[in-house]
């Protein structure tokens, strides 16, 4: 035993290898391996008549994804929802995270962290179905708005074309609300982490040099929170892009990318199309990261 210890101590590379190979093997085969096996399917196409996969490389499936109007609709619908959810999460999370880090007492801060994370410890499905009830036509939210005399306002909002609907639970507005609720912690936590790294003295220096609070926020707090905002938005953006349960439980009947992947590989048995659809969020996130990088979101890292 002792000799083995000495042997490994003298050969750090061996030691490192011994420690790293099992997890890397697991990561490589289970995560990346299965992902690439799925993605590899996208270069094949299905034979329309036999419904069997033809194993000869072709771009036909990709062409189908990006040219068929129904598919373009799905992509644009998912993309718009992801962008809207990301922006909303950022707008809501920024003041909350800033308050948590900057103004709350240590006790209140701990409560805030628990409050932010508590919903994440609950079953995802329970939350989604709960929201369906909350947003239903006879649900608690419309009842609340009615008692506050805001029933007419809700009606007016639901009459908005495209995003409205017969009730909140059957409209894109409702779906948007559920998405924002679900992913908000994923925005708050990285933002709070980024803001916590900003020393108090920087904010004091800003005020000392004559900046009013709004200027300090715009010129110091926000730029330094940007890496956190970028990290959080990658979460909210990609989680919305890939989700298929929320769109199938709450909201209008239009398809989303995740639902399409689920349906194509399951019911329809069109693995190549499902694979090609899975590539779409990956490409969109890469584009998003490139834009964020160009905008300087990672400069302060």
């Amino acid at each position, binding site marked *: 035993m002792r000799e083995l210890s000495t042997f490994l101590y003298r050969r750090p590379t061996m030691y490192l290898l011994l420690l790293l190979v099992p997890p890397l093997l697991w990561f490589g085969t289970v995560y990346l391996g299965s992902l690439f096996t799925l993605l590899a399917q996208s270069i094949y196409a299905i034979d329309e008549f036999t419904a069997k996969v033809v194993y000869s490389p072709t771009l036909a499936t990709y062409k189908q994804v990006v040219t068929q109007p129904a598919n373009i609709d799905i992509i644009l619908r998912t993309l718009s929802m992801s962008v809207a959810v990301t922006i909303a999460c950022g707008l809501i999370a920024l003041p909350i995270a800033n308050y948590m880090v900057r103004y709350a007492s240590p006790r209140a801060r701990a409560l805030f962290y628990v409050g932010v994370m508590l919903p994440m410890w609950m079953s995802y499905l329970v939350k989604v179905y709960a929201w369906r009830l909350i947003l239903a036509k006879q649900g608690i939210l419309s009842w609340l708005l009615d008692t506050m005399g805001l029933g007419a306002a809700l009606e007016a909002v639901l009459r908005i074309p495209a995003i409205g609907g017969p009730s909140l639970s059957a409209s894109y507005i409702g779906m948007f609300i559920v998405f924002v609720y679900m992913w908000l912690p994923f925005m708050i936590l990285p933002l709070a982490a980024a803001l916590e790294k900003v020393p108090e*003295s920087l904010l*004091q220096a800003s*005020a000392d*040099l004559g*900046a*009013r609070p709004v200027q300090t926020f715009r010129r110091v707090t926000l730029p*330094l929170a940007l890496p956190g905002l970028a990290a959080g938005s990658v979460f909210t953006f990609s989680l919305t892009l890939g989700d298929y349960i929320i769109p199938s439980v709450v909201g209008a009947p239009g398809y989303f990318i995740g639902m399409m992947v689920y349906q194509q590989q399951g019911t329809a048995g069109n693995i190549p199309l499902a694979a090609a659809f899975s590539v779409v969020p990956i490409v969109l996130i890469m584009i998003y990261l490139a834009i964020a990088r160009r905008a300087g979101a990672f400069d302060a890292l």
Partner: protein
Amino acid sequence: MTCAIEFRDVSRVYGEVRAVDRVSLTVEPGEFFAMLGPSGSGKTTCLRLVAGFETPDSGSVLLNGRDVTDDPPYARDVNTVFQDYALFPHMSVLENVAYGPRVRGQRKQDWQRRAQEMLELVQLGHFGERRPSQLSGGQRQRVSLARALINQPQVLLLDEPLGALDLKLREEMQLELKNLQRRLGITFVFVTHDQGEALSMADRVAVFNRGRIEQLDTPRTLYTRPATAFVASFVGSANVVTGELAQRLSGRSDPFAVRAENIRLRTLTATADAGSMSCIGDVADVQYHGAMSRWQVRLDSGEVFAAALADAHANGDFKVGARVRLEWSRADAVPLAATERP
């Protein structure tokens, strides 16, 4: 003439702790004023009260005769050099320096020119494009100084600005700060726990202890005529003599202080000078400091005296363990305030 800064009976309390306890003081325009004290003595809180990062629980703060007690930092005509420099990491050095003029809506060509001038003033003219993280500690210090001075404040506050620098750099910066202050004629308020720094740079020094000012005087008076035992030992670590020993040496029980360099070492047989006090003890330790040596002498009653002798060789007879007589003239025994407050 109105004072640059005036504190009227200012207190700041954190829970049970009176960080600043009914402090009143005035700082004259163009003065180099030091706030000296150990950590937790309230000196930094006082500085933050001037800057506006803290508001007093009672009393008022005046800048140039105007009551600014409730004014936020951005409405006060003072600027601060922070202990950690507090440079904005996401901006270039030039943008850091230009921050003040920019938030005040100056045009780009104006703030660029001003910031460049300020950088040249602190000898960093070629560093404008760099990031703060690419600078050394001393350079960051200068950027921080340039950034604070660009607004041409009436008062510049410096919070232990030299604490993070090494000894040689610190001495250079001390000279430079002093020159800068003379040239610009701005009031400098300098917080430090280093008594040497305070004595060598300031026109007047306020010595803080437990939230109060123990003594406010010129460096020379502070050193030669300390008012309390705390000041005597904190500034230049004098020997403080109290109680029975004081009674025995001076004939009165009032405490007094003797500077180490005013003490002479004599052999037991030598006759005492007229008008001097003396006592006998054993040499416990000798430290050689080049220009002088420091001697620790333990009296039979247990007290330890420090004596600093300019010429170490002349006292070659005295070794550790030798029995010696300490002697100083009565004029060098500085009476201290009789009781320390609770």
